[in-house]
């Protein structure tokens, strides 16, 4: 196992150091095994195919190839965006416990988490790029004509800042400038949490959508982010070590244990949140009751009970307990199940908020009380492509940064 040497000198990185690092990364990348390049090629290919679907969708017009329509304008692409940025924010939150707030036991997972928080955020941006109708106008008018009452504006701006801070933090970690990295990490954490709670508020401040309206959304999003962060850390750290055929060293084992325990706690919190969301929902306005009924007992019942509750919350929770936070194989399986469950949580979150017809109380024949949405191949391919991008970047990261090993100082 190789360890990076810590330069003692502070200050800006010198030109020689910069080129040295780049050359090192390049040589690492070029010295991979056959398996590495095959996996890379495969995932890269999937990204390309997904991009083709995306470009085709832009050319033909989204209304013709996506399942969304006037009454349900947000579909699984929005869910996908939420899924990836939730994971990104979560990775930032959990890793900041270690290297921003100085909890030493979580330091070993920090570098990989910061790297992946950037990767998953970019994946989220890629997905949203193919949902927004005029993506190239975003940068211009978000800057020239900002609306401070718009949660979307705040989220976009803050995630932009967050991306910058997290990238800087990772680069600083690479060249072992730990004190500067801590500052960048703190700024990243603040902007990330602010951005993410605004994403929750995008839904929570819409009084016309009973299923979403209320203070619950921003709060739930942050708790969910933390849980997703733990999921991602266990998932990717385990994979990272397995594909490099490396044994876990003691500090890493302890770090994963700590993350596992934190995750179990957060799962309990989420189960508590979901329970009360459902119970209070039944006492809510009719629009909310209709949505919750459809969610629990209607077309989305399988999504809810099997994917969200069982795969996303209950099974990982019990697997974690069974593993006593020591059996990393079981914890990995828990994280795999949880990822699938969490994706369905995002889908249900976005779709069910829109399925109750605007005019359900008026007994109209023009719309059914409960609307339907079905994702199309284009939308599904874009999600798969974003996942493939994460795998692709993850593989490169593992190789080039030699397993993201960290000195504990």
């Amino acid at each position, binding site marked *: 196992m190789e360890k990076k040497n810590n330069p003692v000198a502070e200050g800006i990185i010198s030109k020689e150091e910069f080129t040295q690092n780049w050359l090192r990364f390049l040589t690492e990348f070029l010295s991979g095994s056959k398996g590495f390049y095959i996996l890379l090629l495969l995932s890269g290919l999937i990204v390309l195919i997904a991009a083709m679907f995306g470009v085709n969708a832009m050319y033909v017009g989204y209304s013709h190839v996506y399942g969304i329509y*006037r009454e349900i304008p947000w579909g699984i692409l929005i869910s996908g965006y939420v899924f990836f940025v939730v994971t990104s924010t979560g990775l930032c939150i959990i890793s900041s416990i270690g290297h921003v707030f100085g909890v030493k036991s979580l330091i070993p997972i920090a570098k990989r988490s910061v790297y992946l928080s950037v990767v998953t955020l970019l994946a989220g941006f890629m997905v949203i790029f193919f949902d927004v109708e005029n993506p190239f*106008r975003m940068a211009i008018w978000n800057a020239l004509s900002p609306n401070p*009452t*718009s949660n*979307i*504006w705040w989220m976009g701006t803050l995630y932009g800042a967050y991306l910058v801070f997290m990238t800087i933090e990772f680069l600083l970690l690479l060249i072992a400038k730990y004190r500067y990295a801590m500052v960048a990490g703190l700024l990243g954490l603040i902007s990330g949490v602010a951005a993410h709670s605004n994403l929750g508020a995008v839904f929570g401040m819409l*009084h*016309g959508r009973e299923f979403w309206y209320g203070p619950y959304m921003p709060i739930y999003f942050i708790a969910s982010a933390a849980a997703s962060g733990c999921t991602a850390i266990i998932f990717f750290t385990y994979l990272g070590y397995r594909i490099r055929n490396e044994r876990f060293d003691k500090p890493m084992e302890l770090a994963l244990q700590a993350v596992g325990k934190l995750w179990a706690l957060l799962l309990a919190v989420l189960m508590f949140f979901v329970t009360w969301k459902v119970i209070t929902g039944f006492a809510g306005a009719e629009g909310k009751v209709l949505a919750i009924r459809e969610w629990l007992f209607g077309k989305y019942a399988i999504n809810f009970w099997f994917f969200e509750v069982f795969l996303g919350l209950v099974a990982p929770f019990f697997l974690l307990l069974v593993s006593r936070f020591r059996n990393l194989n079981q914890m990995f399986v828990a994280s795999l199940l949880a990822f699938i469950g969490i994706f369905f949580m995002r889908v249900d979150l976005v779709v069910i908020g829109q399925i109750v017809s605007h005019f359900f109380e*008026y007994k109209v024949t023009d719309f059914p009380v409960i609307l339907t949405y079905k994702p199309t191949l284009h939308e599904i391919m874009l999600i798969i492509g974003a996942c493939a991008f994460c795998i692709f970047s993850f593989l490169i990261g593992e190789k080039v940064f030699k397993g993201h090993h960290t000195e504990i100082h």
Partner: protein
Amino acid sequence: MNWKEFFKNLKTEEEGCVPDETKREFLKIGLIITGVAAGGSLLNVVSVVAEGLATSEELHKEYPYKPHYSMVFRVDRCIDCERCVEACRQTNNVPEYGWRTKILERVDTKAVDQQRQFMPILCNHCNNPPCVRACPTKATYKDKQTGIVKMASYKCIGCKTCMVACPYDARYFNEEKRAIDKCDFCWESRLSKGMKITACAEACPAGVRIFGDLSDPNSEVYKIVHQMGKAVWVLKPETGAKPNVFYTIG
């Protein structure tokens, strides 16, 4: 609506339980609560309700827009001839896949006598518009002069947040304009060119659509809305959007 106005409106909304004083003021002007069968509930016109028979200057203070464009529907007269829909489509180049105004068909087989009613819908040009609050680039905004919720199409990024925010399904994405489109009370096509009435209101043969200035006591809109003992309602008032489009019978 700017930042300050947004918070001011929030505060008046927060008073969930309508105080007795406000209720009495409502009743003075004659805006009474209707039954559920009529398809609506209590309405809240503007944040502060003018008292009874105020003079026009006082009224103008309460209605900040001049003219305060508004529309009233007399739904018992609607016969779904859809001339309004066609007129709107032609006047405003509304594509086939979208609509700016629509006629909903309400059917209640349990109803006595008449079991069908037609209900026109369009953008309500709300006084507390959720779409304007939510738009990241101010591509949609409430006009300070007329109160019309307008589109600055060139700024629209197509995020569709306004579509999700609107409680009334009033918005759709127009592929030709590459922006969200919706009813603008024919501002661009007619009102800005000196015409006094929207295409749909002009086309209606049955006198369903009354378009006018809510702040002008001589306008038909004002007269209908401010009438003792007349049932007038708005759609989905619980969303707090304070719609500017009213529904009545007779």
